[in-house]
Protein backbone atom coordinates (compact mmCIF):
# COMPACT_ATOMS: atom_id res chain seq x y z
CA UNK A 1 0.00 0.00 0.00
CA UNK A 2 2.77 2.45 0.79
CA UNK A 3 6.47 2.95 0.32
CA UNK A 4 8.93 2.02 3.05
CA UNK A 5 10.85 5.20 2.32
CA UNK A 6 8.68 8.30 2.31
CA UNK A 7 9.04 12.03 2.24
CA UNK A 8 8.17 14.30 5.12
CA UNK A 9 6.42 17.58 4.61
CA UNK A 10 3.90 19.49 6.67
CA UNK A 11 1.48 20.73 4.02
CA UNK A 12 2.65 19.43 0.64
CA UNK A 13 0.71 16.13 0.64
CA UNK A 14 -2.51 17.98 1.43
CA UNK A 15 -1.90 20.42 -1.39
CA UNK A 16 -1.30 17.49 -3.75
CA UNK A 17 -4.52 15.66 -2.96
CA UNK A 18 -6.53 18.89 -2.67
CA UNK A 19 -7.62 19.31 -6.33
CA UNK A 20 -8.92 15.76 -6.57
CA UNK A 21 -10.63 15.95 -3.20
CA UNK A 22 -12.26 19.34 -3.84
CA UNK A 23 -13.72 18.18 -7.16
CA UNK A 24 -14.87 14.94 -5.55
CA UNK A 25 -16.56 16.74 -2.68
CA UNK A 26 -18.32 19.35 -4.82
CA UNK A 27 -19.35 17.24 -7.78
CA UNK A 28 -19.66 13.72 -6.36
CA UNK A 29 -20.22 13.52 -2.65
CA UNK A 30 -22.32 16.65 -2.17
CA UNK A 31 -24.80 15.77 -4.98
CA UNK A 32 -24.99 12.19 -3.77
CA UNK A 33 -25.81 13.45 -0.28
CA UNK A 34 -28.40 15.80 -1.78
CA UNK A 35 -30.03 12.89 -3.60
CA UNK A 36 -30.14 10.91 -0.38
CA UNK A 37 -31.69 13.79 1.51
CA UNK A 38 -34.22 14.71 -1.18
CA UNK A 39 -35.37 11.12 -1.40
CA UNK A 40 -36.96 11.49 2.05
CA UNK A 41 -38.99 14.58 1.10
CA UNK A 42 -41.88 15.45 -1.15
CA UNK A 43 -41.46 18.82 -2.80
CA UNK A 44 -44.23 20.86 -4.38
CA UNK A 45 -43.91 21.61 -8.08
CA UNK A 46 -42.52 25.10 -7.57
CA UNK A 47 -39.96 24.18 -4.95
CA UNK A 48 -41.52 26.50 -2.33
CA UNK A 49 -42.03 23.96 0.38
CA UNK A 50 -41.14 20.42 1.12
CA UNK A 51 -42.32 17.89 3.58
CA UNK A 52 -40.52 15.05 5.34
CA UNK A 53 -42.17 11.81 4.30
CA UNK A 54 -39.66 9.19 5.40
CA UNK A 55 -39.61 6.21 3.08
CA UNK A 56 -42.80 7.20 1.29
CA UNK A 57 -40.97 7.96 -1.99
CA UNK A 58 -39.43 4.49 -2.00
CA UNK A 59 -42.74 2.86 -1.15
CA UNK A 60 -44.44 4.73 -3.99
CA UNK A 61 -41.64 3.68 -6.33
CA UNK A 62 -41.96 -0.01 -5.63
CA UNK A 63 -45.74 0.22 -5.86
CA UNK A 64 -45.40 1.83 -9.28
CA UNK A 65 -45.91 -0.70 -12.04
CA UNK A 66 -43.89 1.29 -14.61
CA UNK A 67 -40.90 1.39 -12.28
CA UNK A 68 -41.00 -2.34 -11.74
CA UNK A 69 -41.37 -2.79 -15.49
CA UNK A 70 -38.30 -0.61 -15.95
CA UNK A 71 -36.43 -2.90 -13.55
CA UNK A 72 -37.19 -5.97 -15.61
CA UNK A 73 -36.45 -4.13 -18.87
CA UNK A 74 -33.05 -3.20 -17.44
CA UNK A 75 -32.32 -6.79 -16.48
CA UNK A 76 -33.37 -8.19 -19.86
CA UNK A 77 -31.35 -5.49 -21.60
CA UNK A 78 -28.30 -5.97 -19.39
CA UNK A 79 -28.26 -9.75 -19.76
CA UNK A 80 -28.91 -9.49 -23.49
CA UNK A 81 -26.09 -7.04 -24.11
CA UNK A 82 -23.68 -9.03 -21.94
CA UNK A 83 -24.48 -12.41 -23.45
CA UNK A 84 -24.47 -11.20 -27.05
CA UNK A 85 -21.35 -9.10 -26.81
CA UNK A 86 -19.33 -11.58 -24.75
CA UNK A 87 -20.15 -14.61 -26.87
CA UNK A 88 -19.29 -12.85 -30.14
CA UNK A 89 -16.07 -11.44 -28.77
CA UNK A 90 -15.00 -14.75 -27.25
CA UNK A 91 -15.50 -16.45 -30.60
CA UNK A 92 -13.55 -13.72 -32.36
CA UNK A 93 -10.75 -13.79 -29.78
CA UNK A 94 -10.37 -17.57 -30.05
CA UNK A 95 -10.21 -17.26 -33.82
CA UNK A 96 -7.79 -14.32 -33.73
CA UNK A 97 -5.58 -16.19 -31.29
CA UNK A 98 -5.40 -19.07 -33.74
CA UNK A 99 -4.45 -17.26 -36.94
CA UNK A 100 -0.89 -16.37 -37.70
CA UNK A 101 -1.24 -14.73 -41.05
CA UNK A 102 -2.73 -11.20 -40.91
CA UNK A 103 -3.37 -11.43 -37.16
CA UNK A 104 -2.64 -7.73 -36.65
CA UNK A 105 -4.95 -6.72 -39.50
CA UNK A 106 -7.80 -8.65 -37.87
CA UNK A 107 -7.06 -7.13 -34.48
CA UNK A 108 -7.04 -3.63 -35.94
CA UNK A 109 -10.34 -4.11 -37.70
CA UNK A 110 -11.99 -5.46 -34.57
CA UNK A 111 -10.84 -2.97 -31.95
CA UNK A 112 -11.76 0.38 -33.53
CA UNK A 113 -15.45 0.41 -32.46
CA UNK A 114 -14.17 0.97 -28.92
CA UNK A 115 -13.74 4.60 -29.94
CA UNK A 116 -17.34 5.01 -31.13
CA UNK A 117 -19.59 6.78 -28.64
CA UNK A 118 -22.60 4.72 -27.47
CA UNK A 119 -24.88 7.49 -28.76
CA UNK A 120 -23.29 7.30 -32.21
CA UNK A 121 -23.51 3.49 -32.20
CA UNK A 122 -27.20 3.86 -31.41
CA UNK A 123 -27.75 6.32 -34.25
CA UNK A 124 -25.97 4.02 -36.74
CA UNK A 125 -28.19 1.08 -35.88
CA UNK A 126 -31.23 3.32 -35.72
CA UNK A 127 -30.56 4.20 -39.34
CA UNK A 128 -29.96 0.62 -40.49
CA UNK A 129 -33.13 -0.59 -38.81
CA UNK A 130 -35.32 2.32 -39.85
CA UNK A 131 -38.62 0.73 -40.92
CA UNK A 132 -39.07 2.81 -44.07
CA UNK A 133 -35.53 2.96 -45.45
CA UNK A 134 -33.16 0.98 -43.24
CA UNK A 135 -31.28 -1.72 -45.08
CA UNK A 136 -31.84 -4.33 -42.36
CA UNK A 137 -35.54 -3.62 -42.22
CA UNK A 138 -35.59 -4.00 -46.00
CA UNK A 139 -33.78 -7.35 -45.88
CA UNK A 140 -36.05 -8.58 -43.11
CA UNK A 141 -39.06 -7.59 -45.15
CA UNK A 142 -37.62 -9.65 -48.00
CA UNK A 143 -37.61 -12.61 -45.60
CA UNK A 144 -41.23 -11.91 -44.78
CA UNK A 145 -40.63 -10.33 -41.38
CA UNK A 146 -42.26 -7.04 -40.48
CA UNK A 147 -39.84 -4.70 -38.68
CA UNK A 148 -41.04 -1.52 -37.03
CA UNK A 149 -39.36 -0.56 -33.79
CA UNK A 150 -41.41 2.62 -33.59
CA UNK A 151 -44.44 0.51 -32.79
CA UNK A 152 -43.14 -2.83 -31.59
CA UNK A 153 -41.58 -2.57 -28.14
CA UNK A 154 -39.74 -5.91 -28.29
CA UNK A 155 -38.11 -4.95 -31.56
CA UNK A 156 -37.05 -1.58 -30.12
CA UNK A 157 -35.47 -3.34 -27.16
CA UNK A 158 -33.73 -5.77 -29.51
CA UNK A 159 -32.38 -2.88 -31.56
CA UNK A 160 -30.83 -1.04 -28.62
CA UNK A 161 -29.47 -4.35 -27.28
CA UNK A 162 -27.71 -5.10 -30.55
CA UNK A 163 -26.36 -1.55 -30.83
CA UNK A 164 -25.05 -1.59 -27.25
CA UNK A 165 -23.48 -5.04 -27.71
CA UNK A 166 -21.92 -4.02 -31.04
CA UNK A 167 -20.07 -1.16 -29.38
CA UNK A 168 -18.80 -3.35 -26.53
CA UNK A 169 -17.38 -6.21 -28.65
CA UNK A 170 -13.97 -4.63 -29.18
CA UNK A 171 -13.46 -4.09 -25.46
CA UNK A 172 -14.32 -7.68 -24.58
CA UNK A 173 -12.27 -8.95 -27.51
CA UNK A 174 -9.09 -7.29 -26.23
CA UNK A 175 -9.49 -8.75 -22.75
CA UNK A 176 -10.33 -12.24 -24.01
CA UNK A 177 -7.37 -12.11 -26.36
CA UNK A 178 -5.05 -11.06 -23.52
CA UNK A 179 -6.50 -13.88 -21.41
CA UNK A 180 -6.01 -16.45 -24.16
CA UNK A 181 -2.44 -15.37 -24.77
CA UNK A 182 -1.57 -15.88 -21.12
CA UNK A 183 -2.60 -19.55 -21.19
CA UNK A 184 0.56 -21.68 -21.32
CA UNK A 185 1.02 -23.35 -24.70
CA UNK A 186 2.36 -26.48 -23.01
CA UNK A 187 -1.06 -27.28 -21.54
CA UNK A 188 -2.70 -27.18 -24.94
CA UNK A 189 0.10 -29.22 -26.48
CA UNK A 190 -0.15 -31.85 -23.75
CA UNK A 191 -3.86 -32.17 -24.41
CA UNK A 192 -3.25 -32.43 -28.13
CA UNK A 193 -0.77 -35.26 -27.55
CA UNK A 194 -3.49 -37.00 -25.54
CA UNK A 195 -5.60 -36.77 -28.70
CA UNK A 196 -8.04 -34.12 -27.44
CA UNK A 197 -9.51 -32.31 -30.44
CA UNK A 198 -9.85 -28.53 -30.75
CA UNK A 199 -13.39 -28.46 -29.36
CA UNK A 200 -12.55 -30.68 -26.41
CA UNK A 201 -9.41 -28.63 -25.69
CA UNK A 202 -11.43 -25.43 -25.69
CA UNK A 203 -14.10 -26.61 -23.26
CA UNK A 204 -11.93 -28.54 -20.85
CA UNK A 205 -8.78 -26.39 -20.78
CA UNK A 206 -9.10 -22.98 -22.37
CA UNK A 207 -12.54 -22.00 -21.14
CA UNK A 208 -11.97 -22.90 -17.47
CA UNK A 209 -8.62 -21.11 -17.48
CA UNK A 210 -10.30 -18.04 -18.93
CA UNK A 211 -12.84 -17.89 -16.11
CA UNK A 212 -11.17 -14.99 -14.23
CA UNK A 213 -11.33 -12.89 -17.40
CA UNK A 214 -14.88 -14.03 -18.11
CA UNK A 215 -16.04 -13.12 -14.64
CA UNK A 216 -14.35 -9.75 -14.74
CA UNK A 217 -15.93 -8.97 -18.10
CA UNK A 218 -19.31 -10.13 -16.87
CA UNK A 219 -19.32 -7.46 -14.17
CA UNK A 220 -17.89 -4.78 -16.46
CA UNK A 221 -20.45 -5.51 -19.16
CA UNK A 222 -23.36 -5.43 -16.74
CA UNK A 223 -22.15 -2.10 -15.36
CA UNK A 224 -21.80 -0.81 -18.93
CA UNK A 225 -25.29 -1.96 -19.91
CA UNK A 226 -26.92 -0.65 -16.75
CA UNK A 227 -25.26 2.75 -16.51
CA UNK A 228 -23.40 3.77 -19.67
CA UNK A 229 -26.17 3.24 -22.16
CA UNK A 230 -28.28 6.23 -21.24
CA UNK A 231 -26.98 8.12 -24.26
CA UNK A 232 -27.75 5.25 -26.63
CA UNK A 233 -31.38 5.13 -25.50
CA UNK A 234 -31.78 8.89 -25.33
CA UNK A 235 -30.43 9.42 -28.84
CA UNK A 236 -32.57 6.72 -30.45
CA UNK A 237 -35.80 5.43 -28.92
CA UNK A 238 -36.25 7.95 -26.08
CA UNK A 239 -37.36 5.10 -23.87
CA UNK A 240 -40.26 4.24 -26.17
CA UNK A 241 -42.40 2.91 -27.62
CA UNK A 242 -44.61 2.81 -24.51
CA UNK A 243 -41.59 2.63 -22.14
CA UNK A 244 -40.36 -0.58 -23.78
CA UNK A 245 -36.74 0.63 -23.70
CA UNK A 246 -36.96 2.79 -20.61
CA UNK A 247 -34.11 1.35 -18.55
CA UNK A 248 -33.46 2.60 -15.01
CA UNK A 249 -30.89 5.29 -15.84
CA UNK A 250 -33.22 6.64 -18.48
CA UNK A 251 -36.08 6.66 -16.03
CA UNK A 252 -34.16 8.67 -13.40
CA UNK A 253 -33.59 11.34 -16.01
CA UNK A 254 -37.14 11.24 -17.24
CA UNK A 255 -38.70 11.40 -13.78
CA UNK A 256 -36.47 14.29 -12.75
CA UNK A 257 -36.13 16.48 -15.83
CA UNK A 258 -39.29 15.75 -17.75
CA UNK A 259 -41.66 14.73 -14.96
CA UNK A 260 -40.19 17.20 -12.41
CA UNK A 261 -40.77 14.73 -9.60
CA UNK A 262 -37.68 15.48 -7.52
CA UNK A 263 -38.39 13.19 -4.60
CA UNK A 264 -39.14 10.25 -6.88
CA UNK A 265 -36.06 10.88 -9.01
CA UNK A 266 -33.87 11.16 -5.91
CA UNK A 267 -35.22 7.88 -4.56
CA UNK A 268 -34.37 6.24 -7.89
CA UNK A 269 -30.88 7.75 -7.70
CA UNK A 270 -30.39 6.23 -4.27
CA UNK A 271 -31.43 2.79 -5.50
CA UNK A 272 -29.08 3.08 -8.48
CA UNK A 273 -26.19 4.17 -6.27
CA UNK A 274 -26.73 1.08 -4.14
CA UNK A 275 -26.64 -1.04 -7.29
CA UNK A 276 -23.36 0.50 -8.51
CA UNK A 277 -21.89 0.17 -5.04
CA UNK A 278 -22.78 -3.53 -4.90
CA UNK A 279 -21.30 -4.18 -8.33
CA UNK A 280 -18.12 -2.24 -7.53
CA UNK A 281 -17.65 -4.26 -4.37
CA UNK A 282 -18.08 -7.52 -6.32
CA UNK A 283 -15.56 -6.35 -8.90
CA UNK A 284 -12.93 -5.34 -6.36
CA UNK A 285 -13.36 -8.39 -4.20
CA UNK A 286 -12.71 -10.43 -7.26
CA UNK A 287 -9.67 -8.40 -8.32
CA UNK A 288 -8.20 -8.90 -4.87
CA UNK A 289 -8.71 -12.62 -5.15
CA UNK A 290 -6.93 -12.73 -8.46
CA UNK A 291 -3.95 -10.97 -6.94
CA UNK A 292 -3.67 -13.72 -4.34
CA UNK A 293 -3.72 -16.56 -6.85
Amino acid at each position, binding site marked *: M*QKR*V*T*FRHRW*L*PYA*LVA*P*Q*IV*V*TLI*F*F*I*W*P*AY*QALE*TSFYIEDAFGFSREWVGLENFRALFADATYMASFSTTIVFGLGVTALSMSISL*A*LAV*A*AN*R*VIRSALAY*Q*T*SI*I*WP*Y*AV*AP*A*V*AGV*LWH*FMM*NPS*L*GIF*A*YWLEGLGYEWNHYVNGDQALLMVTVAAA*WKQISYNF*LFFLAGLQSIPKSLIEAAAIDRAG*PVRRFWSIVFPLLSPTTFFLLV*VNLVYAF*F*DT*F*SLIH*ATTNGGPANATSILVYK*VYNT*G*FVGQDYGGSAAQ*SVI*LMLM*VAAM*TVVQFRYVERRVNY
Partner: protein
Amino acid sequence: MIENRPWLNVITHAGLLLGVFFLCFPVWMALVASTHGPEALSRSPIPLWFGDRGWENYSQLLAGGLPEAGGVPVGMMMLNSLIMALLIAVGKIAVSIIAAYAIVYFRFPFRMGFFWMIFITLMLPVEVRILPTYDVIVRLDMLNSYTGLSLPLVASATATFLFRQFFLTIPDELVEAARIDRAGPMRFFMDILVPLSRTNIAALFIILFIFGWNQYLWPLLVTTEERYYTIVMGIQRMTNSGEALPVWHYIMGTAVLAMIPPVLVVLSMQKLFVKGLVEQEK
Protein backbone atom coordinates in the same frame (compact mmCIF):
# COMPACT_ATOMS: atom_id res chain seq x y z
CA MET B 1 -0.84 -23.68 -33.83
CA ILE B 2 -0.82 -27.17 -32.44
CA GLU B 3 -1.64 -29.30 -35.45
CA ASN B 4 -2.48 -28.65 -39.05
CA ARG B 5 -6.19 -28.76 -39.72
CA PRO B 6 -6.96 -27.06 -43.01
CA TRP B 7 -10.74 -27.04 -42.56
CA LEU B 8 -10.38 -25.39 -39.17
CA ASN B 9 -8.24 -22.67 -40.74
CA VAL B 10 -10.97 -21.97 -43.23
CA ILE B 11 -13.59 -21.75 -40.48
CA THR B 12 -11.34 -19.47 -38.42
CA HIS B 13 -10.83 -17.00 -41.23
CA ALA B 14 -14.46 -17.14 -42.25
CA GLY B 15 -15.55 -16.42 -38.69
CA LEU B 16 -13.17 -13.51 -38.36
CA LEU B 17 -14.27 -12.03 -41.67
CA LEU B 18 -17.90 -12.37 -40.62
CA GLY B 19 -17.14 -10.58 -37.36
CA VAL B 20 -15.27 -7.81 -39.14
CA PHE B 21 -18.19 -7.42 -41.52
CA PHE B 22 -20.65 -7.17 -38.62
CA LEU B 23 -18.51 -4.48 -37.02
CA CYS B 24 -17.82 -2.48 -40.17
CA PHE B 25 -21.11 -2.65 -42.00
CA PRO B 26 -22.97 0.01 -39.95
CA VAL B 27 -20.14 2.44 -40.59
CA TRP B 28 -20.09 1.55 -44.27
CA MET B 29 -23.78 2.39 -44.48
CA ALA B 30 -23.19 5.68 -42.70
CA LEU B 31 -20.37 6.59 -45.09
CA VAL B 32 -22.48 5.69 -48.11
CA ALA B 33 -25.57 7.53 -46.87
CA SER B 34 -23.56 10.67 -46.16
CA THR B 35 -22.62 10.95 -49.85
CA HIS B 36 -26.18 10.93 -51.17
CA GLY B 37 -28.87 13.53 -51.42
CA PRO B 38 -32.22 13.34 -49.66
CA GLU B 39 -33.98 11.84 -52.73
CA ALA B 40 -31.82 8.73 -52.80
CA LEU B 41 -32.52 8.19 -49.09
CA SER B 42 -36.25 8.62 -49.28
CA ARG B 43 -37.19 5.26 -50.76
CA SER B 44 -36.23 1.72 -49.99
CA PRO B 45 -33.88 0.03 -50.79
CA ILE B 46 -31.30 2.68 -50.22
CA PRO B 47 -28.07 2.60 -52.24
CA LEU B 48 -25.14 0.49 -51.03
CA TRP B 49 -22.55 2.41 -52.99
CA PHE B 50 -21.33 6.00 -52.75
CA GLY B 51 -23.22 8.86 -54.36
CA ASP B 52 -21.84 12.11 -55.71
CA ARG B 53 -23.06 14.54 -53.04
CA GLY B 54 -20.36 13.84 -50.48
CA TRP B 55 -18.42 17.06 -50.93
CA GLU B 56 -21.59 19.16 -50.82
CA ASN B 57 -22.98 17.42 -47.72
CA TYR B 58 -19.79 17.62 -45.72
CA SER B 59 -19.01 21.23 -46.56
CA GLN B 60 -22.58 22.20 -45.70
CA LEU B 61 -22.29 20.34 -42.38
CA LEU B 62 -18.87 21.64 -41.39
CA ALA B 63 -19.42 25.26 -42.27
CA GLY B 64 -23.15 25.85 -42.33
CA GLY B 65 -24.78 23.40 -39.95
CA LEU B 66 -28.40 22.38 -40.04
CA PRO B 67 -31.29 24.75 -39.67
CA GLU B 68 -33.26 21.88 -38.10
CA ALA B 69 -30.70 21.51 -35.34
CA GLY B 70 -30.29 25.15 -34.46
CA GLY B 71 -27.92 25.88 -37.32
CA VAL B 72 -24.68 25.31 -35.44
CA PRO B 73 -21.87 24.36 -37.82
CA VAL B 74 -20.68 20.85 -37.07
CA GLY B 75 -17.13 22.13 -37.36
CA MET B 76 -17.78 24.26 -34.31
CA MET B 77 -19.26 21.34 -32.41
CA MET B 78 -16.13 19.35 -33.21
CA LEU B 79 -13.99 22.15 -31.88
CA ASN B 80 -16.04 22.19 -28.67
CA SER B 81 -15.68 18.41 -28.38
CA LEU B 82 -11.95 18.69 -28.90
CA ILE B 83 -11.59 21.37 -26.22
CA MET B 84 -13.72 19.37 -23.79
CA ALA B 85 -11.88 16.09 -24.49
CA LEU B 86 -8.45 17.70 -24.06
CA LEU B 87 -9.43 19.52 -20.87
CA ILE B 88 -10.88 16.34 -19.37
CA ALA B 89 -7.93 14.13 -20.37
CA VAL B 90 -5.22 16.56 -19.27
CA GLY B 91 -7.14 17.53 -16.14
CA LYS B 92 -7.73 13.95 -15.06
CA ILE B 93 -4.12 12.98 -15.56
CA ALA B 94 -2.74 16.04 -13.74
CA VAL B 95 -5.11 15.76 -10.79
CA SER B 96 -4.68 11.99 -10.45
CA ILE B 97 -0.91 11.78 -10.74
CA ILE B 98 -0.31 14.28 -7.93
CA ALA B 99 -2.96 12.68 -5.72
CA ALA B 100 -1.42 9.24 -6.27
CA TYR B 101 2.01 10.68 -5.54
CA ALA B 102 0.84 12.11 -2.22
CA ILE B 103 -0.86 8.87 -1.22
CA VAL B 104 2.09 6.63 -2.06
CA TYR B 105 5.08 8.76 -1.09
CA PHE B 106 3.91 10.61 2.02
CA ARG B 107 2.71 9.58 5.42
CA PHE B 108 0.16 12.03 6.74
CA PRO B 109 -3.04 12.03 8.82
CA PHE B 110 -6.25 11.13 6.91
CA ARG B 111 -4.25 9.57 4.08
CA MET B 112 -6.53 6.54 3.94
CA GLY B 113 -9.58 8.78 4.37
CA PHE B 114 -8.63 10.64 1.21
CA PHE B 115 -7.94 7.37 -0.56
CA TRP B 116 -11.40 6.03 0.22
CA MET B 117 -13.03 9.30 -0.73
CA ILE B 118 -11.46 8.99 -4.17
CA PHE B 119 -12.47 5.33 -4.33
CA ILE B 120 -16.10 6.18 -3.63
CA THR B 121 -16.36 8.23 -6.83
CA LEU B 122 -16.33 4.90 -8.69
CA MET B 123 -19.74 4.23 -7.19
CA LEU B 124 -21.25 7.56 -8.17
CA PRO B 125 -21.42 7.90 -11.96
CA VAL B 126 -23.18 11.05 -13.19
CA GLU B 127 -25.99 9.01 -14.69
CA VAL B 128 -27.31 7.90 -11.33
CA ARG B 129 -27.41 11.33 -9.67
CA ILE B 130 -28.29 13.63 -12.51
CA LEU B 131 -30.57 16.17 -10.83
CA PRO B 132 -28.53 17.13 -7.76
CA THR B 133 -25.35 17.41 -9.86
CA TYR B 134 -27.16 19.67 -12.28
CA ASP B 135 -28.26 21.71 -9.28
CA VAL B 136 -24.65 22.19 -8.16
CA ILE B 137 -23.66 23.38 -11.62
CA VAL B 138 -26.52 25.88 -11.70
CA ARG B 139 -25.61 27.26 -8.28
CA LEU B 140 -21.96 27.62 -9.24
CA ASP B 141 -23.06 29.41 -12.41
CA MET B 142 -21.18 26.99 -14.63
CA LEU B 143 -23.85 26.41 -17.29
CA ASN B 144 -22.60 27.11 -20.80
CA SER B 145 -18.90 27.21 -20.10
CA TYR B 146 -15.94 25.00 -20.80
CA THR B 147 -15.31 24.85 -17.06
CA GLY B 148 -18.78 23.42 -16.53
CA LEU B 149 -18.24 20.92 -19.34
CA SER B 150 -14.97 19.57 -18.03
CA LEU B 151 -14.31 20.35 -14.36
CA PRO B 152 -16.93 18.00 -12.83
CA LEU B 153 -15.51 15.09 -14.83
CA VAL B 154 -11.92 15.72 -13.82
CA ALA B 155 -11.90 13.56 -10.67
CA SER B 156 -10.82 10.05 -11.57
CA ALA B 157 -10.54 7.07 -9.30
CA THR B 158 -9.29 4.74 -12.03
CA ALA B 159 -6.47 7.06 -13.11
CA THR B 160 -5.43 7.57 -9.49
CA PHE B 161 -5.37 3.80 -8.95
CA LEU B 162 -3.36 3.27 -12.09
CA PHE B 163 -0.68 5.73 -11.04
CA ARG B 164 -0.67 4.40 -7.49
CA GLN B 165 -0.20 0.89 -8.81
CA PHE B 166 2.64 2.01 -11.03
CA PHE B 167 4.39 4.03 -8.31
CA LEU B 168 4.33 0.99 -6.04
CA THR B 169 6.42 -0.91 -8.58
CA ILE B 170 9.14 1.76 -8.62
CA PRO B 171 12.11 0.66 -6.47
CA ASP B 172 12.54 2.43 -3.12
CA GLU B 173 16.22 2.89 -3.89
CA LEU B 174 15.30 5.71 -6.25
CA VAL B 175 13.83 7.71 -3.40
CA GLU B 176 16.84 6.96 -1.23
CA ALA B 177 19.22 8.02 -3.96
CA ALA B 178 17.23 11.20 -4.52
CA ARG B 179 17.29 11.98 -0.82
CA ILE B 180 21.03 11.41 -0.58
CA ASP B 181 21.41 13.88 -3.42
CA ARG B 182 19.29 16.26 -1.36
CA ALA B 183 16.42 16.39 -3.84
CA GLY B 184 13.17 17.61 -2.31
CA PRO B 185 9.82 15.89 -2.89
CA MET B 186 8.80 18.10 -5.81
CA ARG B 187 12.19 17.72 -7.45
CA PHE B 188 11.91 13.94 -7.16
CA PHE B 189 8.41 14.05 -8.63
CA MET B 190 9.26 16.27 -11.60
CA ASP B 191 12.67 14.83 -12.45
CA ILE B 192 12.21 11.14 -11.72
CA LEU B 193 8.61 10.08 -11.30
CA VAL B 194 7.01 11.97 -14.19
CA PRO B 195 9.62 10.91 -16.77
CA LEU B 196 9.29 7.29 -15.60
CA SER B 197 5.50 7.48 -16.01
CA ARG B 198 5.68 8.74 -19.59
CA THR B 199 4.34 5.57 -21.23
CA ASN B 200 1.57 5.25 -18.68
CA ILE B 201 0.57 8.87 -19.15
CA ALA B 202 0.44 8.46 -22.92
CA ALA B 203 -1.61 5.26 -22.75
CA LEU B 204 -4.00 6.81 -20.25
CA PHE B 205 -4.30 9.92 -22.35
CA ILE B 206 -5.68 7.90 -25.28
CA ILE B 207 -8.35 6.25 -23.14
CA LEU B 208 -9.31 9.50 -21.44
CA PHE B 209 -9.40 11.47 -24.66
CA ILE B 210 -11.92 8.99 -26.05
CA PHE B 211 -13.85 9.10 -22.79
CA GLY B 212 -13.97 12.90 -22.96
CA TRP B 213 -14.87 13.10 -26.64
CA ASN B 214 -17.73 10.63 -26.20
CA GLN B 215 -19.40 12.42 -23.28
CA TYR B 216 -23.11 12.79 -23.86
CA LEU B 217 -25.28 13.29 -20.81
CA TRP B 218 -23.07 15.92 -19.25
CA PRO B 219 -22.92 18.28 -22.26
CA LEU B 220 -26.65 17.71 -22.69
CA LEU B 221 -27.29 19.14 -19.23
CA VAL B 222 -24.66 21.84 -19.11
CA THR B 223 -25.10 23.42 -22.52
CA THR B 224 -28.24 25.30 -23.40
CA GLU B 225 -26.53 27.75 -25.73
CA GLU B 226 -25.87 26.33 -29.15
CA ARG B 227 -22.34 27.62 -29.40
CA TYR B 228 -21.28 25.18 -26.66
CA TYR B 229 -22.84 22.08 -28.22
CA THR B 230 -20.53 19.13 -28.63
CA ILE B 231 -20.82 16.84 -31.63
CA VAL B 232 -21.84 13.62 -29.89
CA MET B 233 -24.77 15.27 -28.15
CA GLY B 234 -25.49 17.46 -31.17
CA ILE B 235 -26.44 14.41 -33.27
CA GLN B 236 -29.37 13.83 -30.98
CA ARG B 237 -30.77 17.28 -31.84
CA MET B 238 -30.90 16.19 -35.45
CA THR B 239 -32.57 12.81 -34.96
CA ASN B 240 -35.17 14.29 -32.64
CA SER B 241 -35.74 17.46 -34.60
CA GLY B 242 -39.49 17.53 -34.16
CA GLU B 243 -41.98 17.23 -36.97
CA ALA B 244 -39.53 17.57 -39.82
CA LEU B 245 -38.44 14.26 -41.32
CA PRO B 246 -34.96 13.27 -40.17
CA VAL B 247 -32.36 14.38 -42.69
CA TRP B 248 -30.46 11.10 -42.76
CA HIS B 249 -27.70 12.16 -45.14
CA TYR B 250 -26.71 14.94 -42.74
CA ILE B 251 -27.18 12.82 -39.63
CA MET B 252 -24.94 10.09 -41.01
CA GLY B 253 -22.39 12.69 -42.10
CA THR B 254 -22.33 14.04 -38.57
CA ALA B 255 -22.03 10.52 -37.15
CA VAL B 256 -19.02 9.92 -39.40
CA LEU B 257 -17.44 13.20 -38.32
CA ALA B 258 -18.08 12.33 -34.67
CA MET B 259 -16.30 8.98 -35.11
CA ILE B 260 -13.25 10.11 -37.05
CA PRO B 261 -11.13 11.75 -34.31
CA PRO B 262 -11.40 9.04 -31.61
CA VAL B 263 -11.12 6.19 -34.14
CA LEU B 264 -8.02 7.81 -35.64
CA VAL B 265 -6.50 8.10 -32.17
CA VAL B 266 -7.10 4.39 -31.51
CA LEU B 267 -5.79 3.25 -34.88
CA SER B 268 -2.71 5.45 -34.95
CA MET B 269 -1.66 4.51 -31.43
CA GLN B 270 -2.96 0.97 -31.36
CA LYS B 271 -0.14 -0.53 -29.32
CA LEU B 272 -0.27 2.09 -26.59
CA PHE B 273 -4.05 1.96 -26.57
CA VAL B 274 -4.18 -1.81 -26.07
CA LYS B 275 -1.61 -1.59 -23.31
CA GLY B 276 -3.43 1.27 -21.62
CA LEU B 277 -6.81 -0.40 -21.76
CA VAL B 278 -5.83 -3.86 -20.64
CA GLU B 279 -3.59 -2.59 -17.86
CA GLN B 280 -5.93 0.08 -16.63
CA GLU B 281 -8.45 -2.47 -15.49
CA LYS B 282 -6.03 -4.72 -13.69
